[in-house]
């Protein structure tokens, strides 16, 4: 079976700053993987490059067998359609209702894009689907609220509903609970993983909490200073091993003498 994500020797640099230094890993279809690593180790850049939001310098990234690294235009959009993305900062359109935000998740599937996805013009089926998605994240009663009238946890639920609306095969979640309090974070993470498991999706999720990572993941990948240091099934990844990710030279912008924090 084609892996959901397969990267091979991915290098990416901003000017002279090498951020990704030969990243290779695979995520099998239906697998839930947590990516751990200290701040500034290149996690977010890696996540963004998987979606083609950040172009890589060399190496290949394949999503469900399709090469992101060499695709552009329509081809890239097709790859992206099968790939849900959950952001740390939710990234809902602040002026639109939760319902409209969820509807926008379907834009990629329609030839007319936005024209088929406005609250005014979307067909009855899509409108019902959007409400179903809101139902599944428990936000149907807030459908007409704007994001700023919702709490952080509720906004992330709406963002998850938007991802569901997109009907992806793979989900990328970049620190989905980093801006939420522990309780709301736990609830949102529960919801996200439950949906991923129910739909049989593949998942790559970055987290900062080792305990949560071990609770949810099938497999843990650890990144340090732009390289993959750990790649282990969750049962084999003990705490001591994971702690090493956060000590010593963790950042991609660290000086060789280790002076930079």
């Amino acid at each position, binding site marked *: 079976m084609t892996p959901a994500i397969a990267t091979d020797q991915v290098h990416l640099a901003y000017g002279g700053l090498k951020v990704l230094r030969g990243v290779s890993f695979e995520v099998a279809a239906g697998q839930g993987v947590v990516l751990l690593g200290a701040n500034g180790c290149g996690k977010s850049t890696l996540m963004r490059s998987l979606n083609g939001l950040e172009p890589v310098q060399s190496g290949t990234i394949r999503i469900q067998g399709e090469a992101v690294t060499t695709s552009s235009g329509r081809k890239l959009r097709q790859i992206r359609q099968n790939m849900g993305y959950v952001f740390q900062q939710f*990234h809902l*359109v602040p002026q639109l209702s939760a319902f409209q935000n969820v509807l926008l998740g379907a*834009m990629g599937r329609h030839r007319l894009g936005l024209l088929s996805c406005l609250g005014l013009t979307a067909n009855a089926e899509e409108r019902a689907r959007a409400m179903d998605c809101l139902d599944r994240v428990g936000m149907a009663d807030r459908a007409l609220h704007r994001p700023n009238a919702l709490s952080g946890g509720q906004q992330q639920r709406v963002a998850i509903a938007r991802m569901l609306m997109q009907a992806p095969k793979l989900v990328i979640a970049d620190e989905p609970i980093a801006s939420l309090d522990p309780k709301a974070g736990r609830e949102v993470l529960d919801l996200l993983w439950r949906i991923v498991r129910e739909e049989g999706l593949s998942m790559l999720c970055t987290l900062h909490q080792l305990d949560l990572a071990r609770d949810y993941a099938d497999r843990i990948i650890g990144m340090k200073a732009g390289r993959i240091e750990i790649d282990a099934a969750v049962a084999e990844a003990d705490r001591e091993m994971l702690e090493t990710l956060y000590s010593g030279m963790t950042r991609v912008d660290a000086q060789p003498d280790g002076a930079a924090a």
Partner: protein
Amino acid sequence: MIDRPDLPPRFRTPSALTWVLVVGFAAFFIQGLVASEISIDRLIRGAGNLVRFIGQAVPPDFSRAPNIADAMLETLNIAVVGVTFGCLFSIPLALLAARNTAPNALVRTIARFVISVARTIPDLIWALIFVVTVGLGPLAGILAIIMDTIGFAARFYSERFEEVPKGPSEALTATGTGRLSVIFGAILPESFASMTATSLFSVEKAIRSAVTLGLVGAGGIGVELSTAMRLFRYDQAAAIILVILVVVIAFEQISSAIRKKII
């Protein structure tokens, strides 16, 4: 404590460039004063003339009220029609000119050039150009207001587009949506409030310009005003100026009330 070597100096000698600028400005200012032959004598005579003008203007003569009303209506027509088309044309132009929505650098440069030409040429000169090309009357006024509005609104719209946080558009891009859908789904909604405020400013600005456009024959109440002045009917002119004052103030009040509601 007193003889610390790292104590900041009280005064730093200005750079050579500062000196050149200051001296250059002073020279230009004095040359201007001399060239315009300002003298106490002329100012006193001017004050006398002003008193005579006011004496003849009071009481204002409202006998031509129906004509004034017609001309004022035409002015409002010019302003409203011109500003509506101006704002509509500004949206695509601003999208082409903003860094995050322009298709490529060449198109962006061209769009920005068009906008800055529209802005740099003053409204009265646009009116003169259109009076020559489409003839006297309100059409020339409307076209002048359109150009003037584009110069103002398109610039502010495009600046707003560039300021929009890129998170939501990135989130939509990540779903595999095309560029146009991202622009209309995320960037336009995020700019909507600011665009409305800019458009209302344009309306206020357009009404003030529409009043003066008649002075060069582009229709509206300015035609009446320049006729009254040329015939030395200062009492009629005063009536027209009062009407202009009332209408412009009324419009500004309405527009700022709407703006406050939106923002």
